[in-house]
C-alpha cells in the first residue's frame, strides 16, 4: 500500500514535469513555426508551406526596427548601470549585519514584489514631477529599477561564500582594500555577478508592463511595438518579431557570459575550496 502511494507520487512528479515542459516549449515552438508560414493570412497550425516573408516584413518595417534598436541600447545600458549599482549595494550589505541590513535588503528587493504596473505608473508620476519627459531617460530609469533586485540578489549570493580571511590575507600581503577587492572578492563573486547581469539583460529586453507607461511616441521598446501592432495590424510579423527578440536576447546573454567569464562558470563552478 505504502509502495503504491510512493509510486503514484513518483508518476505524478514525472507527469508534472512533462506538463510544464509542454506548456513551456510547445507555445514557443508554435510561434517559431508560424513565423515561417508562407500564407498571407493567419491560418491554422501547422503551416502548409514555409517562407521568410514575415521576417522580410519585420526588417523592412521602420516601426519595429526602431523598437528593436531602442530595446537593445536600453538593455545594454540598463544592465551595465544596474550591475554596477547592484554589486556596490551587495558589497555594502555583505559587510554589515543586523537589523539595518535586513531592512535595506528588503528595500532593495522590493521591486520584485511590487506589481510592475504599479511601478510603471508610480514612475510615470514621479518623472513628470521631476520634469523628465524624455522617453529614453524614463525607460532607462524604469529598467534600472526593475533589474536592480536581480543584480543585488545574485551578487549577494556570490559574496556569501567568500571567507573574510581571503581579503585579510591579501591585505596582509600588501594589497590595499581596493586592490584586495579586485584581486580576490571580485573574481570569486564573478559567478553571481554574471548571473545578475544576465537576468538584468533578459528582464530589460522582455519588460512590457513598466515600459508601457514610460514610452513616448518616438521612443518605445520592441515588446511595446509588438503590443501596439497586435491591436492595430495583427499579422504574423509579430511572430517574427517575437523570434527576433528571443534570438537577440539569447545572443547577447551568450556574449555577456563570454565577456565576463563563462569559461570560469562552466569550468570551475563556484570557487570555494
Amino acid at each position, binding site marked *: 500500500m505504502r509502495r503504491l502511494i510512493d509510486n503514484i507520487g513518483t508518476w505524478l512528479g514525472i507527469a508534472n514535469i512533462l506538463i510544464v515542459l509542454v506548456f513551456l516549449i510547445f507555445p514557443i515552438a508554435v510561434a517559431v513555426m508560424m513565423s515561417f508560414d508562407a500564407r498571407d493570412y493567419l491560418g491554422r497550425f501547422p503551416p502548409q508551406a514555409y517562407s521568410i516573408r514575415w521576417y522580410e516584413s519585420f526588417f523592412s518595417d521602420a516601426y519595429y526596427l526602431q523598437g528593436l534598436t531602442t530595446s537593445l541600447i536600453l538593455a545594454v545600458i540598463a544592465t551595465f548601470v544596474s550591475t554596477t549599482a547592484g554589486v556596490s549595494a551587495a558589497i555594502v550589505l555583505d559587510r554589515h549585519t543586523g537589523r539595518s541590513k535586513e531592512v535595506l535588503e528588503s528595500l532593495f528587493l522590493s521591486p520584485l514584489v511590487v506589481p510592475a504596473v504599479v511601478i510603471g505608473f508610480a514612475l510615470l508620476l514621479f518623472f513628470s514631477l521631476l520634469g523628465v519627459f524624455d522617453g529614453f531617460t524614463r525607460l532607462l530609469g524604469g529598467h534600472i529599477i526593475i533589474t536592480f533586485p536581480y543584480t543585488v540578489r545574485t551578487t549577494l549570493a556570490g559574496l556569501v561564500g567568500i571567507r573574510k580571511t581571503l581579503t*585579510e*590575507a*591579501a*591585505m*596582509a600581503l*600588501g594589497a590595499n582594500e581596493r586592490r584586495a577587492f579586485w*584581486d580576490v572578492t571580485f*573574481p*570569486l563573486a564573478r559567478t553571481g555577478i554574471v548571473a545578475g547581469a544576465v537576468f538584468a539583460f533578459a528582464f530589460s529586453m522582455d519588460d512590457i508592463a513598466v515600459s508601457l507607461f514610460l514610452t513616448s511616441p518616438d521612443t518605445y521598446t520592441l515588446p511595446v511595438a509588438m503590443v501596439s501592432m497586435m491591436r492595430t495590424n495583427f499579422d504574423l510579423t509579430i511572430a517574427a518579431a517575437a523570434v527576433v527578440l528571443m534570438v537577440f536576447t539569447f545572443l547577447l546573454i551568450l556574449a555577456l557570459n563570454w565577456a565576463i567569464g563563462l569559461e570560469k562558470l562552466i569550468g570551475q563552478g563556484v570557487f570555494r*575550496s
Partner: protein
Amino acid sequence: MSVLELLHVTKRFGAFVAVDDVSFTVDKGQIVSLLGPSGCGKTTTLRVISGFEEADQGSVIFSGKDMKGKRPYERNVGLLFQDYALFPHMTVEQNVAYGLKQRGFEKTRIVNRMGEMLDLVKLKGFEKRRPSQLSGGQQQRVALARSLAISPEVVLLDEPLSALDAKLRQELRFELKEILSEVDATTIVVTHDQEEAMSLGERVIVMSDGKVVQQGPPTEIYASPRTRFVAEFIGRSNWFSGVIGAVAAPGVRDFETGDGFGLLVPEPTEATASKDYDICIRPERIQINITNDVSNNHPINTLSGTIRDVAHLGADIHFVIEVAGKHLITATEQYNGQSLERAGQDVALTFSPHDCIIVPSNS
C-alpha cells in the same frame, strides 16, 4: 634587539576588554608562543599586531617604529591563517607571488624569490596546481611560503596546525620549526594547544581573560607554574587544597590538605596574605608501590589507595587511583615491559616534596 614590542596594549569591544594591558617583546629570530583558551584575547592580540584591529591604548612597535594608525598593508607582517586563506582562483605560483607583486618587484625578481620559497617548503613542481588540488599539509606549506616570500619583519601564525590530523601535525611541527629557523623568522605562534605552544616556542606567553598570566621558557612554565590556571592549562595535574604549616626542613613546609592528609611541600614562591594554597602533582611524578611490599615503606608524602582503572596507551600507562575521601588521582608510568598492576589492587602513592607545585588558592 627586539623586533616586536607590545607596550601596555589594551583593546576593548564595547564593554568587553579583549586584551588587557598586554606587554611583551620578541627578539630577532625568536619563536614565541601565545597560549591560552579560546576567548583569552590571543587572536585579538594577533589582529592588533597585524593591524586589523587598532589598540585602544598602548603601542605596537616594529624594530623601533610605532605602528600606530598603520593599516595591515603598511606593516610588513607575514600572516598564516588558520584556514590558510589561499586564493582558490590562483595557482600555487600566483598565490606565492601575490605579495611580491603588490610590492611592485620586477618580474625576474618575483620568479627567483618564488622559486626560493617553493624550494624552502619543498613544493617544487606544484607551481601550476590550484589550492584545491593539494593536501592539507601542502596547502599549509603554500600559505607559509606566501607569507614568508615578502620577507616579513614579524611572522604571525594563527593556530597553524589545528586543521590537520594528529599524525600529520607532528610531522609538520618539526618541518615548520625548521623552515622558520632557516629564514631566521621572528615568529609569534597563537595557539590553544599546549603541545603546539611548547614544541614550537622558545618562549611561551600564557594568556587568560585578556591578560598575560605568565611567560617564560616551556620547561619553566611546566615545572613552575605561578597560578593554578597555568598549571591546569598546561599538562595534566592532581590537586589538593589546604593550609600551609610550619617549616619542617630548609625549604620544606608542612601542609594539611582539606581531606586531612599531611604532606611536605616546598616553600611557596608566590606570597599571599592567607595560608590557603593549592598543591599540584604531575601524574608522571607519582610513584606507584604495591602496598604488601614491606620494603616500600615511605613515611613522607605517601597516600594509600586502590587502583580503579588502568589504561595502556602505548608508551604510557595511565592509572586512576582512589585515595581516602573518594579523591581520584591520575598517575602515569612509562611502559617498559613491566607486569601491570590491575584494577582493584591496593597501592601506596609516593612523591617527593619537590615534585609538589604550590600555588595560591583561587589563582
